[in-house]
C-alpha cells in the first residue's frame, strides 16, 4: 500500500501542480475588484447538489459556478458538492441543518418537491429560503421512427385503440417521465403502459432497442436521435414552440388540442433563516450571470431556457410548483 502511495504521489504531484496553478490564477483574478456587492459571504461557498456528478442539475451548477467565478461576479470560490442519497433528501437535509449559514446553498430540482410527496415526509420547499429559479428545460414526446402515428393526435388515437397497449419507457416511479405520462393520460383519456427503468439512460436504451413505443426526452438528448432517424418527435410540452431551426417545426401539444404543459426547472435556495442581504447578494449575482455571453451560449448549446424568477417572486413560485407536482402525483396515486 505504501508503494502504491509513492507511485501515485508522483502522478499526484503533477496534478496538484496543475491545481496549484489554477488556484493561483483564481487568486490573481480575485485580487481585482469584483462587482459592487452589498454583503458577500467570506470564504468558499458550497453549492450542494443531490445528483452524482454529471447529472443535469450538477452540470448546470458546475457551469454556473465556473461562469460566476470566471466573470468575477462572485469572487468566493464556488464548490459544487454532490451529496447523493435518498432522492435528494440527503442534500436537502444537509442544507436544512445549516440554519442561517452563509456559505451553503442548495440546488433546487424537481425531487426537492416530489420526494417528500411520494415518501410522505414533511415538505421541504417551505423551510428553505428561496433564492431564484433560473433554468428551464422543455420536454419532447418521441415515438419510434416507424410508428404509424403522424402527429400527437394520431398517437393518442393509437393509444385509445387498446388500453395500456402503448408502452412508455421512463425513469423511476414519480420521475418527470412518469408525471408527463400521467398528464398525457389525464388530458387525453387514453391509458398508457408506463415501464419504469433504472434511470433515463436505461429508458433510452429500451427505446432504442425497440422494446417500447414512447419516451420523454429533453431537446438536447432528442437531437442526435432525430438526426440519426432513431426517433420521431410528435410534440413539445411547452407554451410556445422552440425557436431553433432543429426544433421549430415541432408543434406544441397545446396547438394540437391537448393542454399538456410540463417542463423541468432548476434554481437555488438557501438554508432556513438565510440573511436577506445574502439573498440579495445571490439574486444580484444570478441576474448578472444570466446576462453573460458565456451563460447565454451554454443555454443555447444545451437547448434550455433561462428565465429568471427573482427572489421577490421565488416563494410564490415554489408554492405554485409544489401544488402542480402534488396534483399530478395525486392523480398517479403516488402522493402519500
Amino acid at each position, binding site marked *: 500500500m505504501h508503494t502504491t502511495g509513492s507511485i501515485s504521489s508522483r502522478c499526484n504531484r503533477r496534478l496538484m501542480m496543475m491545481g496549484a496553478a489554477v488556484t493561483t490564477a483564481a487568486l490573481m483574478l480575485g485580487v481585482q475588484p469584483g462587482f459592487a456587492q452589498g454583503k458577500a459571504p467570506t470564504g468558499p461557498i458550497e453549492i450542494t447538489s443531490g445528483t452524482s456528478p*454529471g447529472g443535469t442539475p450538477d452540470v448546470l451548477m458546475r457551469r454556473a459556478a465556473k461562469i460566476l467565478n470566471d466573470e468575477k461576479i462572485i469572487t468566493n470560490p464556488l464548490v459544487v458538492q454532490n451529496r447523493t442519497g435518498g432522492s435528494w433528501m440527503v442534500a436537502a*437535509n444537509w442544507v436544512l441543518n445549516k440554519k442561517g449559514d452563509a456559505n451553503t446553498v442548495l440546488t433546487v430540482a424537481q425531487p426537492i418537491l416530489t420526494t417528500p410527496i411520494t415518501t410522505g415526509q414533511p415538505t421541504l420547499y417551505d423551510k428553505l429560503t428561496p433564492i431564484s429559479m433560473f433554468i428551464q428545460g422543455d420536454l419532447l414526446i418521441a415515438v419510434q421512427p416507424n410508428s404509424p402515428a403522424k402527429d400527437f393526435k394520431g398517437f393518442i388515437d393509437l393509444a385509445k385503440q387498446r388500453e395500456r397497449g402503448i408502452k412508455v419507457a421512463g425513469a423511476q416511479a414519480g420521475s418527470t417521465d412518469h408525471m408527463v405520462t400521467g398528464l398525457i393520460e389525464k388530458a387525453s383519456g387514453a391509458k398508457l403502459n408506463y415501464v419504469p427503468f433504472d434511470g433515463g439512460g436505461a429508458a*433510452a*436504451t429500451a427505446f432504442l432497442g425497440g422494446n417500447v413505443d414512447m419516451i420523454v426526452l429533453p431537446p*438536447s438528448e432528442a437531437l442526435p*436521435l432525430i438526426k440519426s432517424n432513431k426517433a420521431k418527435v410528435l410534440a413539445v410540452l411547452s407554451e410556445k414552440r422552440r425557436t431553433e431551426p432543429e426544433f421549430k417545426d415541432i408543434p406544441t401539444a397545446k396547438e394540437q388540442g391537448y393542454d399538456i404543459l410540463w417542463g423541468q426547472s432548476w434554481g437555488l435556495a438557501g438554508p432556513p433563516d438565510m440573511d436577506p442581504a445574502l439573498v440579495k447578494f445571490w439574486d444580484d449575482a444570478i441576474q448578472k450571470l444570466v446576462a453573460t455571453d458565456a451563460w447565454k451560449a451554454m443555454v443555447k448549446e444545451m437547448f434550455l431556457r433561462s428565465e429568471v424568477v427573482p427572489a421577490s417572486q421565488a416563494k410564490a413560485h415554489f408554492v405554485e410548483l409544489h401544488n402542480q407536482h402534488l396534483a399530478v402525483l395525486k392523480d398517479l396515486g403516488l402522493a402519500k
Partner: protein
Amino acid sequence: MIDSLVSLGQGFAIALTPMNLLFIFVGVCLGQLIGALPGLGPSAGMALLLPITFGIPPATAIMMLAGIMYGGMYGGTLTSVLVNVPGEAASVMTAVDGHRLAKQGRAGAALSVSAIGSFLAGVGAVIALVFVTPPLAEFALSFSSPEYFLLATLGITATASIGSGSPIKAILMAVFGLMIALVGTDPILGSARLTFGSTELLDGIDFLPVAIGIFGIAEVLASLEQSYDSEPIKTRLKDMWLSGKDWAECRIAILRGGVLGFLIGLMPGAGPTVAAILAYVTEKRFSRHPERFGNGALDGVAAAESANNSAAHGALIPMLALGIPGSASTAVLLAALVLQGIRPGPTLLVEQADLVWGLIASMFIGNVILLVLNLPLAPLFAALLRIPYEYLAPGILVISLVGAYATTLSLFSVGLTLFFGMVGYLMMKADLPRAPVVLAVVLASLMESSLRQSLMLSEGSLSIFVQRPLSAILLLLVIASLLLPLMSMFTRHRARRRSRNEQQISIATK
C-alpha cells in the same frame, strides 16, 4: 476494414501528442490508485475529477477519464489480493480467491496473471471496438429486461456452488444478501421497503459498504485475534512470477473470461461487476479442478480480472455508437462529454471522429502503460505483505472508513460499513460463506426490476422469455444450471448406492 485502420492511424496521431500521452499516463496512474483504494471505485473517482477536466481540450479530457476507468480495473486487483478488501466493485471475486493465494505466498502470481489477463482482454476488446462497433452496438440493443432477468438468475443460482461448505448455508447467505438489497425504495412502484423510517436507507444499501465490511473489515478483525507477533506471509522469489504451468492453466481462463466479460460489458444493463461474477462462475464450471475455487484458484482470478477489464472496454461500444451508458463509468464519460459541450448520441462517431478514434488509440497506449507498470511491480507489491500485519491493519481500517465516507459524503455509509464488518466477522466465526451475500446484493435489484419490467413489457405474459431468441437461449442455460447439479447429485447417489450394494454382496459372499 481499411477505413477503420486509416481512422485508427489518425487516432494514434492524435493520442501520441506529448500532451495527450502525458494525460493518458496521468489517467491510468490515477485509475490504478483509485482502483486500489477501497471505497472509491473508478466511476466515483472519475466523477470527482470531472471539474478539473473543464479547462483541457475534450479529447484529452476523455482520454484521461477513460484511463481512470480501465486503470481502476487493474488497480482494484491489488487491494483485493493483498488485503482482501475489494478496491472497487468489479474485483470482488478476486477478493475471494486472490487473497487465499496471497496467504499461500502466491500474491505475485495472482497479481501478474491479473495484469496479463487484464491486458490481453483489454486489448482484445479495443480491437473489437475498432472493427465491429456498429454491429456490436446493434447487438447490445437486443438485450433488454427479459435477458437481464435470466442473466441475473444465472448468477444467483450459481451462488449455491460457491464456497466449499454446505450449499444450504451458501443459499441462505444469498438470501441474506437479497434481504439487504430489498432495503430502500422499490424501483418500480416507488414504495419504501424495509427502511424503518430512515431517510438514509431510502436509496437502499449500496454494494460497497457491504463488500468492504464483510470482506475487508471482517478480515482485519479476524486477523487481530492472534495476540502474538504474526509471521509475515512468506513470498518466495520463485513464486513471484508465473510459472509455465500457471500460464498453461490460465490462458484459456483469460480467453473465456475476456470474451464473456466483453459480451456482458456490451449490455447496457450489466457492467464489469456482473461480468466478473459470471466469468468466475463460468470458469468454475469449466475448470478441471472446481474444488480449488474459493480456496485460491489462479484461473478463477484470471477469468474474473480479464472479464472486468474487457467489460469496462466493451461498455464503451454502446456509449460511443449510441450514446447510452453501459456502466457507471461510461455514464460519467458521457457526462464529461456533455460538460465539454459535446452531444453524445448515435451521431457521435461521425461528428466527433477525431475524438472517438483518439480515445480508441489512447486505450491501446493506456493498456500497454498499465501492463508495463503492473508486471514488473507485481513482485514489489506482493513484497508489501512482508510488512508486519500489525502495522498494515490500522491503515487498512482507516483507509476503508475514509473511502466509505468519500462515496456518499455521509457518516451513515461509514456506519453501514462497520455494521457489515461486524456481521462479516460473526459470519466467519459461524462458518457461513461471505461471497454469496455480496453476489446477491449486486444481482438482486437487476433480477427483481428486470423481471417486473419484462412482465410489464409483455403485458403480463410469460411468453416474453421464450419468444425472444436471446432470452430463450439464456433460459435453457438457466434450466441447465439448475438441472446439472441435481443430475450429478443423482448419479453420485446411484453410484454410491451401487457401490454399497456391491460391498454388501461381497460381504454376503464372503
